[in-house]
């Protein structure tokens, strides 16, 4: 995978993970172009599109578009499964019925979960349980700022 983007129906970016080195300007350009292209697609169209020399896989979950770019020789269908697995992980972590707001307000957690699951663009941990366990443990290691655990850390 070269990169993964999460953006809303209005085109606002919620998460961006790049597995290839690009300058900030290039990243912005790519994001803008891709967001436009994906948002222009009609609902009944195929989840795959060809963009530059990459294949772009996108799937819409409620109000969020999950968009991945893979190279020409990779498997598109398994990428759809990867996206789905990530959504499942988010769902489990945020206590079922995860929505866009959860990702907006806890974007750093979304990044942590993504980094536990994917590494360098490839899935590194195929067990749901292990990923969630690792995140849980890491969360416990975080020093609480307040005696009440409900208060957010930052």
């Amino acid at each position: 995978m070269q990169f993964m983007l999460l953006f809303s129906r209005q085109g606002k970016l919620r998460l961006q993970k790049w597995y290839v080195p690009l300058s900030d300007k290039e990243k912005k350009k790519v994001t803008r172009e891709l967001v436009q292209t994906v948002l222009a697609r009609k609902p009944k169209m195929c989840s795959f599109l060809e963009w530059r020399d990459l294949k772009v896989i996108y799937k819409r979950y409620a109000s969020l578009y999950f968009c991945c770019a893979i190279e020409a020789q990779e498997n598109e269908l398994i990428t759809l499964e990867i996206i789905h697995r990530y959504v499942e992980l988010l769902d489990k972590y945020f206590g079922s019925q995860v929505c866009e707001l959860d990702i907006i307000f806890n974007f750093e957690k979304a990044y942590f979960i993504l980094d536990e699951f994917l590494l360098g663009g490839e899935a590194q941990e195929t067990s749901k349980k292990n990923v969630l366990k690792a995140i849980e443990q890491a969360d416990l290691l975080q020093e609480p700022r307040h005696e009440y655990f409900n208060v957010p850390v930052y």
Partner: protein
Amino acid sequence: MPAPIRLRELIRTIRTARTQAEEREMIQKECAAIRSSFREEDNTYRCRNVAKLLYMHMLGYPAHFGQLECLKLIASQKFTDKRIGYLGAMLLLDERQDVHLLMTNCIKNDLNHSTQYVQAWLSAPWAAWAHQRCAETWLGGGGETAENLKLLPEKKGSSVCRPRDQEGARVDGDVPPSHQKPAQREETTVNCLELQWKEILGLNKGRSGSVLHTSVVLLMLSHFRKLVPQLVRILKNLIMSGYSPEHDVSGISDPFLQVRILRLLRILGRSDDDSSEAMNDILAQVATNTETSKNVGNAILYETVLTIMDIKSESGLRVLAINILGRFLLNNDKNIRYVALTSLLKTVQTDHNAVQRHRSTIVDCLKDLDVSIKRRAMELSFALVNGNNIRGMMKELLYFLDSCDPDFKADCASGVFHAAEKYAPSKRWHIDTIMRVLTTAGSYVRDDSVPNLIQLITNSVEMHAYTVQRLYKALLDDISQQPLVQVSSWCIGEYGDLLVSGQCEEEEPIQVTEDEVLDVLEGLLVSNMSSPVTRGYSLTAIMKLSTRFSSINRIKKYDHMRPALLERMPIMEKTATNGPTEIVQTNGEAEPSSLESKTLPPVTQPTSQANDLLDLLGGNDVVPVIQTAPPHKACLCWRRTAGPTGRSLSIRWADPCSSPARVHPHSPAFLLDGPPLTAPLQ
């Protein structure tokens, strides 16, 4: 200074902004607060501020002043700080920043941290930077880092060693040659991998899926062909093994690992007969046993098909693969249909016969609603056309041409022409097909196809009468499609005598008089729909007919204009942009007036005086040039290639100055302004 606001508060506040300007204001205020907080070296709230900075960065605002702060966070002893610090570093830094060099020490220290989760954590930033040139710096500067990597697997548990190794190999792989020590690199990678393998083979059922997974990712080296049998065994175990809920997706155990192994087998078996043979069985097994009700199963099947296609598999297996793709085509899920069509396109060259069996399904896909599927189906259909199925396929393709989107029409039309040229069963069929394309998608046909078609028509000598008759009829119906009009007027000009004589073998001859033909051609000249190129064609046609038709009286009535047209040319002045433009203005008096009076411009002359004209223009050097592209700059130029005075006589039609309404839509706007013309002459 009061405590900086929490991340949540900031996000909530920014979301209440109603306009972009309001949001920018809020962000700027917060950035100022953060900057002053950074300046104060506030340790307690640094991670909060960096978190806020990351949010603002995601919204698209500059956040470079936070880079050094990330470094400080990483160096901190608190886990929370480190976490956010590394996240910030991954998001904000790239190879251009020198700050990452400062992190080398921190990372080295963290690698030896007591908590394994810190180490595991490092894999992500390591991965992020492994691609970049900073890897080169790190490895070049310290073989120690590589050493550290090597030692880790021995020390820590599996959850740590896998990311380490993965990134270790990746880093090694990415270091440019100048910094590489090949032997050392090989050694490091091989060491890591062998350690991995020992663990895997020692482990019962290879249940540490992630270790397997990562090792499999690493094994992208052809060295490891000898491991193919073991890989095959692992895959077999995976398929046969019982239910494992945590690795399971819709009833299939660990599909990600399965796909990875298949991918690896593909790479290893690519040009190697032995490996390919070892894999045949397992591939057949996976292909037949996988559940296809959900996307996961299809994903595995797809990977299997790709593998079978790439390795040196036996023909039975290849046929099995193509049948799987054929089954995919019938699936309800359009993603799967798309994937099938793409793969079939790749294999159609090598396994043509097998793909032919699915031709009818492919042709059905032409009627699909999805645009990408239609395009793929169209390309595949053209690839499948051959001498046997040309008639049937062409019918479907022409029907598709009728109803498809304009984006496709150009490609489809060229495809049809190409296929017709290669496989046409008879000349008449060929001409009919061409006619059909021109009438249905005439305006989308490529510019260069007009001369090709003309050449084709001239070659089919016995069909001339039939062709010209059909083209004439088409012209009567519709003169808006330029390529059709151009080809028709050319043919009428050439074979007008056949048309008028009423001889046609192929179909019922029509009765046409010379006057009617000339009427039609004149109509083209004055029509608003005709482009300048088309007018050129029709003009030439009329000229030619003057030699073929007997009733030259009609043409002769413009004789009085000949002297005016053919008088001595005025002195041409060279302008900065182009010389000949001036000509239009100076000697154009005769022409614009004639155009405006809507009469035929005087360019035809009877045969007997054709030679005089030729003499005037310098004899055999004269070459009529009808420009077909770009149409908006068309002019009918009789240009001498070499002659005593070296002048070119340029007769330009549709002079933009005088008849703006008739200019081809592609011409730039300034052309419609009055003189001086600045448009370049073609």
